[in-house]
């Protein structure tokens, strides 16, 4: 509401370009007088941001060039940690696991979320409670979600999944989380369960933004629901899908909590992603330099995924 009041007071926004506003404030004598106020307002932010973001970022990169094992002083070894990483078969497996986990979680979450968003657009009001039920899973922390899924993936016949399969195949008992062949899939399902909510909401907003007249016209021309879904909803909700894909890729790359709770990276490191590998190497094996190098690899992956978003933000920063 305050926003609308502010807009009314301002008239339309387009006639106030940022540059002319800056110049006007400048003309009004607010430039050098700004400095003390600006630094005063920013000081706590810059200090905290410096400690929590800038320092760790620089220091992680710096540490990745050092051998920090043992009690002796860290020794500069250049690219040694990276050479070791990429010749370490465990790390190469980790990279593959990360790729599978990130892509599968994203495809499953966004795929289901997108489909459900388009279906609920056929009857937005009647499906509202169902959307809330699915979105609720997104409001549950990964740690708790992981715990919930342990109950479903239990290795004995008391696990819901085993019980459902047991209807067709009596006595079925698969240790989903304890078998290296199924553990990664099980973690992906659990992660995707919580991951569907946001794509559902984003894609639904995208579908809702499509002009109603398009649907009217399509139906008048005799289009079926399926044709409306395929030719209008799917292509026109792509902006929402793109956003959802980006968010879920970022989230899956930095995943830690759910892996920690469900499998701890096991069995035999079959569910260890790069984000978990760095934790294990640095915080449980105390190979800080080695863990830092793995973090830099993770950082590179994150940056590759984020290039469009970063360009967009940087261009928009005025």
């Amino acid at each position, binding site marked *: 509401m305050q*926003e609308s009041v502010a807009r009314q007071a*301002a008239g339309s926004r387009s006639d106030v370009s940022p540059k002319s506003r*800056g110049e006007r404030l400048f003309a009004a004598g607010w430039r050098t007088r700004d400095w003390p106020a600006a630094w005063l307002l920013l000081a706590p*932010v810059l200090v905290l941001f410096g400690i929590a973001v800038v320092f*760790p970022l620089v220091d992680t990169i710096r540490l990745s060039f050092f051998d920090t094992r043992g009690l002796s002083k860290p020794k500069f070894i250049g690219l040694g940690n990276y050479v070791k990483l990429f010749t370490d078969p465990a790390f190469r497996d980790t990279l593959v696991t990360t790729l599978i986990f990130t892509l599968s979680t994203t495809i499953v979450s966004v795929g289901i979320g997108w489909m459900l968003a388009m279906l609920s657009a056929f009857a937005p009001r009647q499906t509202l409670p169902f*959307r809330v*039920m699915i979105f609720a899973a997104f409001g549950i*922390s990964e740690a708790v979600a992981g715990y919930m899924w342990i109950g479903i993936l239990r290795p004995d016949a008391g696990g819901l999944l085993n019980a459902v399969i047991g209807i067709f195949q009596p006595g079925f008992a698969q240790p989903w989380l304890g078998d290296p062949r199924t553990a990664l899939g099980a973690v992906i399902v659990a992660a995707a369960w919580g991951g569907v909510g946001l794509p559902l909401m984003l894609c639904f907003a995208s579908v809702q933004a499509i002009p*109603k007249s398009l649907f009217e016209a399509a139906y008048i021309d005799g289009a079926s629901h399926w044709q409306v879904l395929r030719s209008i909803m799917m292509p026109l909700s792509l902006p929402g899908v793109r956003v959802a894909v980006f968010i879920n890729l970022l989230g899956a790359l930095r995943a830690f909590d759910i892996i920690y709770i469900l499998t701890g990276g096991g069995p035999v490191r079959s569910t260890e992603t790069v984000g978990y590998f760095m934790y294990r190497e640095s915080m449980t094996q105390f190979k800080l330099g080695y863990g830092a190098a793995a973090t830099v690899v993770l950082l590179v992956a994150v940056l590759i995924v984020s290039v469009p*978003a970063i360009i967009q933000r940087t261009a928009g920063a005025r």
Partner: protein
Amino acid sequence: MIGRAPRWPIVILGIVAVIWVIPIIGIVMTSIRPLAETSRGWWRIDSFTLTLSAWERVWETWPLAPAFVTTAVLAVIATVGTMLLTPAAAYAFHFLRFPFRRLLLIIIINAFVLPQQVVIIPLFQLWRDLGLIDNFLAVLIPYVGLSFAWSIFLVKNFLEDFPAEVVEASRIDGARPLQTFWHIVLPNSLAPVFATGILQFLWTWNALLLPLLYLRTNVPLPVILARINGTYELNWDMQSVAAIITTVVPLLVFLVFQRQFAAGAETRSGAKD
């Protein structure tokens, strides 16, 4: 949306929604039935007894009550910190002119892509050297510091629609930059500041990695849950109670404010500008 809404999408969504809440029903059922009944599966209904025994015993078994207080204290301080400092910075970036303004802004708003993993090794060493391990500051500083990467973007985005004329007028009336912030801009930007607070509250309440590494004695609920989970004792009933207690506050906040959350999360991830 159209006059003739078909029925099948409603049916499909209903089925999916029911499947989606099964894990939630699972822990609720496990928490209110005796272990003897649920050990062969919480979904079995050959005998059904209601009991609050686990809800009573859990408080003595694990330090859930102090953990709840710890979680709330950490989440509230971190949330208030972010809500106070973010609008000040967003105002300075948007309305004031000072050296390196754009450079600082670009660095801060792009930091949202950084994963938490980048933080943990350097801060672990720093806190160890400063003796801050097991001190609340060890998590509060990164909680608030990391939040600026998305919160400043969110609030500054809102300020782009804020009428510059009002700020100019206050200036012509002789207000100093700080007075303009306090009397004009801040009271009129409460909506985005509030949205920022909700996001920060949920994030800090649910945080696992940082408190797991930097706190030892007074730990928040997710860390307790992780510890319980690692014990392999057959006490699913009490574990489920602990899981419910861990998630009930953020889940309620989330459901009540889901609109702000969706909008905020979208902005936070750089999707909107």
